């Protein structure tokens, strides 16, 4: 018997609980000063530069990175606590979150020293925003299909083509992107992609916003026309980005942001039903809380595996699959359970406003970071079926 995947019950160490208190106090302070409103998940401005700088001052960006690059050399579990507290509070983390979760670790692994020394400390200070350029028109989750070309030229590469669904590209200072440096080979369809560091806001890059059904603008189309990237901005092996990009995804797939994106509607439901719920509401809330608790324990467990230096690709895919399906259904379940909440409940209006936004957000949750179908393919491979 080998198929079962174990998620050992990691307990967060005591210093995590101390840190959690600090983060909660910090967030309460920020709410009090009006930086953000946790009850308005659809606030217009999710990029708040001064908030990012203050988070940076606390040492909560790049927490696990070496001190010489501005990091704190703290554990993944400590980082985990900061991430979940920020997410639950609906804090405006757009500016630094992608760099903290993914781009920074990629630079740490693959960038030349002078680039690390230049960029990583600025990420830690909350000054730098990153975007990720993976999807292209007609590729999406099918990374092999990427066509945007990087053509070798004197001292670097010329980039031509289009990336799409690129979150935050309109405010990003950098993008880590994969481009095609060679055609795929017959033996290896994964061959020929290379990872690059791209400095945004340069001639040769055009960022076109794409409106979302939520009414927000965070997606973009990014068009490259003879855009020059110097040789030292190649990250890792030329033509060998496939492996790099997939191991990176364990970070993107298992974190608390993968089941907490619509969490706010659950809190508001509990507020709306009050201290003496009817049986139907109580049962609905109880099930949702049990499901949430279970996913969180799985997600914490994966953070423990990352801390132990493992590459829990299949486990992370399971957390993302279950987590995003759950957070997608959550607004609909809450809507259902809220149907009989008294019209006079204190926060009914807040709940309804939140539901409106969460229901519009829900469709994207099982798409971003790898679609459900792709994840189930990865899990099936882990089970030895492919």
């Amino acid at each position, binding site marked *: *018997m*080998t*198929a*079962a*995947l*174990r*998620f*050992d*019950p990691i*307990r*967060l160490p005591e210093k995590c609980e101390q840190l*959690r208190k600090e983060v909660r106090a910090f967030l309460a302070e920020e709410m009090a000063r009006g930086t953000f409103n946790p009850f308005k998940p659809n606030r217009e401005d999710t990029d708040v530069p001064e908030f990012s700088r203050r988070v940076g001052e606390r040492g909560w960006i790049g927490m696990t990175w070496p001190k010489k690059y501005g990091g704190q050399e703290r554990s993944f579990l400590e980082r985990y*606590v900061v991430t*979940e*507290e920020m997410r*639950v509070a609906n804090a405006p983390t757009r500016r630094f979150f992608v760099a903290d979760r993914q781009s920074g670790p990629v630079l740490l692994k693959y960038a030349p020293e002078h680039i690390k020394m230049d960029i990583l400390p600025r990420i830690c200070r909350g000054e730098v925003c990153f975007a990720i350029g993976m999807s292209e028109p007609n590729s999406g989750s099918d990374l092999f299909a990427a066509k945007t070309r990087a053509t070798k030229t004197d001292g670097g590469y010329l980039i031509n083509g289009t990336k799409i669904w690129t979150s935050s590209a309109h405010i990003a200072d950098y993008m880590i992107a994969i481009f095609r440096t060679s055609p795929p080979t017959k033996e290896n369809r994964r061959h020929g992609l290379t990872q690059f560091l791209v400095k945004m806001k340069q001639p040769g890059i055009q960022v076109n916003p794409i409106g979302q059904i939520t009414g927000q603008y965070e997606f973009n189309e990014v068009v490259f026309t003879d855009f020059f990237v110097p040789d030292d901005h190649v990250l890792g092996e030329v033509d060998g980005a496939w492996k790099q990009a997939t191991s990176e995804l364990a970070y993107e797939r298992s974190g608390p942001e993968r089941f907490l994106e619509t*969490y706010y509607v*659950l*809190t*508001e439901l*509990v*507020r709306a*039903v*009050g*201290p*003496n*719920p009817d*049986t139907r*509401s*109580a*049962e*609905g*809330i*109880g*099930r949702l*809380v*049990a*499901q*949430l*608790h*279970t*996913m*969180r*324990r*799985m997600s914490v*467990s994966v953070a423990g595996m990352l801390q132990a230096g493992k590459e829990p690709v299949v*486990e992370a895919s*399971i957390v993302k*699959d*279950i987590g995003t399906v759950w957070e997608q259904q959550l607004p609909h379940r809450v809507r259902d359970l809220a149907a009989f909440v008294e019209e006079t409940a204190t926060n009914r209006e807040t709940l309804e406003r939140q539901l409106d936004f969460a229901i519009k957000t829900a469709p994207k949750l099982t798409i971003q970071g790898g679609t459900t*179908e792709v994840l*189930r*393919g990865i*899990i*099936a491979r*882990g*089970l*030895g*079926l*492919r």
Partner: protein
Amino acid sequence: MAESDNIVVETAEKIFADLADPQTINNDKNGAWRAPLWQALSEAGLPLSWVPDDLGGSGAGLADGFALLNAAGRFAVAVPLAETMLAGWLLAQVKIASPEGEMTVVPASPKDRITLDAGALSGRARGVPFAKAAKHFAVLAHGKDGASIALIDAAKAQIESGLNVGYDHSDTVTLDKVQPITIKPAPRGFDQTTMMLMGGAARSLQIAGALESMLDISVRYSNERVAFEKKISKFQAVQHNLARLAGESAAALAAATSAADAIANARSFDDEVYLEAASAKIRCAEAAEKGGGIAHQVHGAIGFTLEHVLHRYSLRALAWRDDFGSESFWAVELGKLVARRGADELWPLVASR
């Protein structure tokens, strides 16, 4: 076989592999396997894992006992191992020594109540697992001075036989002024909820174990069975179903082992332990329904037959949902707890460890 790093689980797995192979049991229609299995388990001291040495047990500790139950679930073991362990644990709360032989706990449903009046026990308890096979019952009763824990002779009770969905004994026990062998007041704060949470956690580990095995045999079957000239494991629709089964199995195991870890390390059954144990029972029951459904789908008609072992796991996992509070019972109770604590206390509760 999942790796076992403790001697209790290693011993148990060896016994299960030798004497409780599901295929062998399935072929043995007259139950001749039961006695040697129970004898081997007893000789190894496993049914009294949770009873300290000085009370007649092997004092294995809560964590090892939960791991043992998970292993028992992987073999869908149908002898009163969990029940005897729970009874021993209950008696040990008040330092009543455990007798030899099969035991079970009364009541096994949060809604049933046994009352204590003038030193005698009365009341009715439905769905008591293996009551028919037990020589003694560990009883939690309520009198005017609060909760008490008693050991009684099973022969003093009226037992109405019944079978659960998994074809295991699940009986109705009626006590009519039964004089206990021993009775003592329960410790402060120990009540029926405590017992149900503990029983629910035990069942959660068994359900998770059964799901692990269902995943294993389903993956294996999909790699053997050929349809439309291909192994069915090569069909994407089958792969996605098995990926979902893996997710349900993983969720059940994570929820159950987390609850076990919480109970084993807690000083009392506080709100955090409540969340862990109730969540495990809810989530494991949901996984039994969803995961078991997929396992049967993958197996097609063969898995619906008595000849195939799948039902040993799937039906038992479904049956275990009902013991010590169903998922709907615990969901209502957990929902009430969350509501009582208030909206702003939900996240601190979930993020408590």
